[in-house]
């Protein structure tokens, strides 16, 4: 398709405008973090802080246990992603390749599990964890996030394995691989983009949780996750916008960086097959 010069210009202008509009909130977060308190409480709002107050980051890190929050969020996310990926790779593969009795109802069940509201699940989980004295421990979150993640990852991986031709592992087995060997040596490497996309998705699900963290960990300050820390700041310091914005930047940074590196897997990985 060849466009005229004007059409291209129009396309570029539209795309630039749309991106600018949609990403404006992210810019505004940075702008808020780097502004002085005076600038934040004056009108018209300053669109470009002068000078930029980078020292706010040092101040926030010093005054708040941000790295501890990030560490806790990471432990929980990595733990729940590993646990979920392990069970759902096997389950997704089984659902994709074997006609297990009840596999249809399994599919329906997984879809149903995706619908479970966290606000419903948090009640019995609280009762259960309280009875075994686990409230306040990071394990509660690892398990609770797994309930969020497993239904999604199993379904995503099943769909992904479905796009991979069976001939691939049949060839491997003909060449002497065991079925698990074929899964490990042939299917998983071919599915790398799909696995990456799924794991990224799972990581974001865990990182984003607020309901479980708030319920299980509010009284255990040392185990606060990043989101819990941020909301605690929002509660107390409604006017210190630069501090809470700076903390938000630090908390959002890891997940945004991961996203920037893995996005092509996320978009491509959902549909790309085994042709490579």
């Amino acid at each position: 398709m060849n466009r005229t010069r004007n059409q291209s210009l129009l396309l570029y202008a539209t795309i630039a405008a749309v991106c600018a509009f949609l990403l404006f909130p992210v810019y505004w977060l940075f702008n808020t973090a780097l502004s002085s308190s005076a600038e934040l409480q004056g009108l018209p709002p300053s669109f470009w802080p002068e000078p930029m107050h980078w020292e706010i980051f040092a101040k926030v890190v010093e005054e708040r246990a941000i790295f501890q929050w990030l560490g806790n969020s990471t432990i929980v996310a990595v733990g729940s992603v590993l646990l979920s990926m392990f069970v759902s790779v096997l389950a997704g593969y089984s659902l994709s390749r074997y006609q297990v009795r009840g596999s249809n109802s399994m599919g329906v069940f997984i879809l149903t599990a995706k619908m479970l509201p966290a606000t419903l699940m948090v009640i019995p989980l609280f009762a259960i964890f309280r009875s075994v004295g686990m409230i306040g421990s990071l394990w509660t979150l690892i398990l609770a996030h797994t309930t969020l993640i497993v239904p999604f990852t199993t379904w995503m991986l099943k769909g992904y394995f479905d796009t991979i031709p069976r001939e691939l592992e049949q060839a491997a087995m003909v060449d002497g691989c065991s079925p698990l060997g074929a899964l490990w040596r042939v299917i998983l490497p071919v599915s790398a983009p799909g696995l990456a996309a799924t794991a990224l998705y799972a990581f974001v699900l865990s990182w984003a949780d607020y309901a479980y963290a708030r319920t299980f960990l509010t009284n255990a300050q040392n185990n606060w996750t990043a989101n819990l820390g941020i909301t605690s700041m929002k509660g107390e310091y409604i006017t210190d916008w630069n501090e809470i914005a700076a903390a938000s930047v630090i908390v959002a940074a890891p997940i945004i960086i991961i996203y920037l590196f893995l996005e092509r897997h996320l978009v491509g990985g959902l549909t790309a097959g085994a042709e490579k």
Partner: protein
Amino acid sequence: MAIPRSQSGTTWFGLARPSRRHWLGYILLAPAVILVAVIIIYPLVVSVDLSFQKVGIARLDVARKPFTLANYEKLFLSPEFWKSCWITLKLVVTVTLLSMIVGLATALLVNNQFRGRTMARLFVALPWAVPEVIAVVIFSRFLDSSFGLINWLFITLGVTDELWGWFSDPTLAFWSIVMTMVWKGYPFISIMVLAGLQSIPVDFYNAAKVDGAGVWQRFRYITVPVLMPVLGVVTILVMLWVFRDFAIIKVLTDGGPIKSTQTLAILTYDQAFGFFNFGYASAVGVITLLICFIASYLMLGRQTKSMY
């Protein structure tokens, strides 16, 4: 290709032989089934059980309270519950509609061939990676009644001449949630639609062009049919997300002012952990789940048909 040596191995594991395929399939499924039974089904049973008891802060190591339907009676007679249903419905419809529009438009826009397309795709879907709680921080700053950007903009543009209290007026509070949710929700739609668009082989378009199909016809007869199933699934997922969302509403408005943004999810949570009525809260939660259930299957039923 040496076949005879390894064929005895494959027969056992069924993949190559459709007739014998059982036990490995079950073994692979077992860890997931066990995990799901322990951390999803068992808690679910507990919550249904709780919903039939008059119980405050529940523990499992004490005797259960007697069976009662009081929670459900209270629920259906409570105007608060019906109001929450209505608010939830309004929110689901508004947010889903708006984020579908934004998501579809951005996906179609970025799917054009142009230099820097990879970059543009990356940025268009970026809010997907911003945690909900942080989106709330951003939008509460935007909507701050005295120094927020939005109020300043509206006054400067002459939309209004007074400062709007975004979190003290029920209607405005509703729209503040809509804005935040649309910004958080549209990227998922873009991502999924882009993936759908990518799955269309260029050959289709070329073949159609050779046969003399114009731009509109190619869109109508190739793009739209391929996207329909994707859109169906995406709509359901977005609706479910709005229906059940907790973080955005809890942190942005806390269900207020005067409970005007109290969705079913917020009602459930506040009953459990604000008023410590675990029994009643479970009843609200169970009803919420049933609504999710019925609505999704009604839509999914239509969906699966349209896919074939």
